Each structure stands twice: as C-alpha cells, then as structure tokens.
C-alpha cells in the first residue's frame, strides 16, 4: 500500500516537475526567441483591444525597406518603396529601388506590374493568391488574429507587441515557418513584418514615415 502510495506520489511529483520544466522551458524559449519580450497572457483581452484599436486606422501611407536574407548563401538584398492601405481591403506596394514593381490589391482583384508587363489576377481563381492577399490585408487592418490560417502567440515589451503567427495549412507551411508582426503600442500600427521561411531564410519589411488616417484617393488602388 505504502509502496503504491509512494509510487503514485512519485509519478505525480515527476509529472508536476515535468510540467513546470516544460512551462519554464517554453517561457525561456519565448525569451530566447524574442529577447526583451514577455508573453501576453490574456490573449482574449488583447485580441479585443487589438481589433478595436486597429479599426480606428482607416488609411496608412508609408515608406518601407525590405531585406531578404539568404542564410546559407550569406547574401542579403535590400529593396525599398512606398506602401498604401485604405480600409477596407485595399493595399498598394510600389518597389522603387533597386527595381520597379507594383502590386495592388483591391478586394478580390489584384494587379502586378513589373518593368515589362501588367497582369490582372482575380484572386478568387487562385487559392494561393487568395491566401497571400488575405494575409497581407489581415496584417494591416488588424484582423490577422481572427485568421484560421494561423495559430498565434503574442509577446510584448513597453513599446511593442509581437504577434508570432504559425501557419496551419500545408500550403502556407511550405512558404513560411512563422510570420512575426511587430505592432506599435501607441497606435497599433504595424512597425515591421518578419517572414521566416522553413529553410532559415528571412524577409523583413520595416515601415517608416507612417502617416495614419490621411486622405488617400481611391485612384491609388486603381487596377
């Protein structure tokens, strides 16, 4: 009887120790991954607040710098350009240096223009385009936390929230290991987007000179 008690007790203690160790390791992992950040525990409250604050952003005009790092090849390519968003569902990205490329998303339609050709795409006819379009729009208009395409963990420091999104679907997992959104606490606008690929390569888009809620003409998103 005693032996049985001791054994049960030992198993419980072991389980408890394991659980605590796991929690500790996960916390340490989060800290190790994002130094200076702690986990947001009340995710539901954060989601609610995030949705309310993001909804106040009707438009964004911003510059951006994009850095693509190829880890194994020790190569980085930096490009830059201009970004526009207008609620709802309208995004335009113009790459201006060192190449020109335009991408306009307007509802279910998309236009891409390189230095040779303009192509119009109905994103409804292409599942991958549909997903990429949705991710981009969800990220900037603050609805990404409701997306069923990702599981999300949220971290914070005194100025920034980090939203770490892990794809659920096999299609997205092929392209991204995680997408990490850095969101400013002062106005809930996106400061940067890190797209981490399964190979270890990474693309970071950093926004600067952001202007929120200024007048942006509908023609900016003409297809």
């Amino acid at each position: 009887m005693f032996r049985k008690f001791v054994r049960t007790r030992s198993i419980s203690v072991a389980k408890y120790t394991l659980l605590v160790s796991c929690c500790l390791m996960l916390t340490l992992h989060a800290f190790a991954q994002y130094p200076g950040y702690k986990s947001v525990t009340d995710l539901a409250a954060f989601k609610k607040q995030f949705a309310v604050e993001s909804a106040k952003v009707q438009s964004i005009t911003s510059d951006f710098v994009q850095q693509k790092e190829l880890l194994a090849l020790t190569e980085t390519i930096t490009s830059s350009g201009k970004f526009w968003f207008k609620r709802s569902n309208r995004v335009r990205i113009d790459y201006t240096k060192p190449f020109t490329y335009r991408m306009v998303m307007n509802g279910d339609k998309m236009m891409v223009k390189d230095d040779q050709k303009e192509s119009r795409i109905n994103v409804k006819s292409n599942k991958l385009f549909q997903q990429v379009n949705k991710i981009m729009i969800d990220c900037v208009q603050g609805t990404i936390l409701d997306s069923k395409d990702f599981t999300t963990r949220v971290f914070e420091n005194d100025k920034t929230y980090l939203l770490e999104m892990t794809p659920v679907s096999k299609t997205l997992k092929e392209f991204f290991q995680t997408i990490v959104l850095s969101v400013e606490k002062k106005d809930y606008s996106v400061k940067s987007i890190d797209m981490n690929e399964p190979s270890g390569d990474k693309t970071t888009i950093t926004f600067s000179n952001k202007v929120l809620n200024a007048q942006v003409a509908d023609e900016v998103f003409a297809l």
Partner: protein
Amino acid sequence: MKFLHCSIALLLFAACASDYKARKPVANDKACAEKIKPTGIKTAWYTTHIDVIGKHISGLLLVKQMPDSSKRVVFTNEAGVTFLDFEFRADGSFQVKQVIKQLDKKAVVQLLRKDFELMLGIPFRKGVYEAWQMNDERYFGVPQKKETAYFITGADCASLRRIELGSKRKKKVTVEMWGNNLTTPDSVKVKHYTFNMVIGLKKIER
C-alpha cells in the same frame, strides 16, 4: 488544292531542314577556344522575367559562387518568397536544395537546370571541344547526353557571340549575354526554339 499541298510540303521541308546543314568541321583553334570559353556568371542579383507559353512570371534571381567552387541559383519573387534554390557542384553533380510544389515537376526542374547550366558555362568546364565553321561564325561544341552545347564566336575570335544548345539537326536554346564583364553580365537572354519560352535577366546594381 495544289497550292495547299505545295504549302504543306514546303512547311514540312522547312521543319525537317537542319539548322546545322551548312556547318563544316574545322581544326580546333585551342587559343581561340580558351579565349572565348564562357566561364559562366559568378555572383550577381538579377531582375528576371520568364515568358512561357503565354504566361509571364517575374522575380529576382541570385547566382552565387560559393567558397567550395559550387554555384547556387536562387529564384525568389519580389516580396522575398523563395521559389527555387539549385546547387551546381564543382564535380558536375546537381541538387535541388529547395523548390515550391508548383514547380516541383521533373520536366520543369530539368529544363531550368539545363538553362542555368548554359548560363554558368558548366558544359564547357572539361574543355574537350569539336570545332565547326558556319557562315561567318566559329562553333566550339561539347557533346552532352543527347545534345551538343556550343559557344560561338565570329571569324575574328574577338568575343563570345552566344551559347547554344542543339540536337543533331535543330537549335534548341540560345543564351546571349551583354556587358563588359561576362562573369557578371549586365543582361542575359535565354531563348528556347522548340517551344515558346524566353528568360530575361537584368543585373541589379546594389
């Protein structure tokens, strides 16, 4: 009706005519071959356009010479997502390091592999050539499995005019490069002749 028959016969004749009929074997001018032999692109980023059977794809292409003498070719879209990463090793072997599902078809991989191998000058590494003269051009060829890879210069052996891949009778692919330094050319055009496909590269100045 007679005209139609004649037209079909003419078309068939044209289709069967060899692109290399007028080619004459000549002595291999080793000095010229060594001077013109393409050593391939070393390390550079390019904006890239691929037009294939009515479809247009654009993106960025990185060619990178690695410290172990292998070469890597990586194609990404403008937003940074990697579509493919091919490794061409110094011993001639090839490995697909990464390819997205949409491009992961044997025919597509082999087609791009051959095009990139021409751009990288891989068929000419061994340096065993046969030589021909056609019109005002000198052809230096290296037999491949079913085809021959050529590099072509003028009669004066002044510069590389193009790289070409052909079967016994037909020209299949040409690679033209422009710029002062052909190890990092300013622009490259890869054109297929057996179906409608063109790859255009323009160097990105960083």
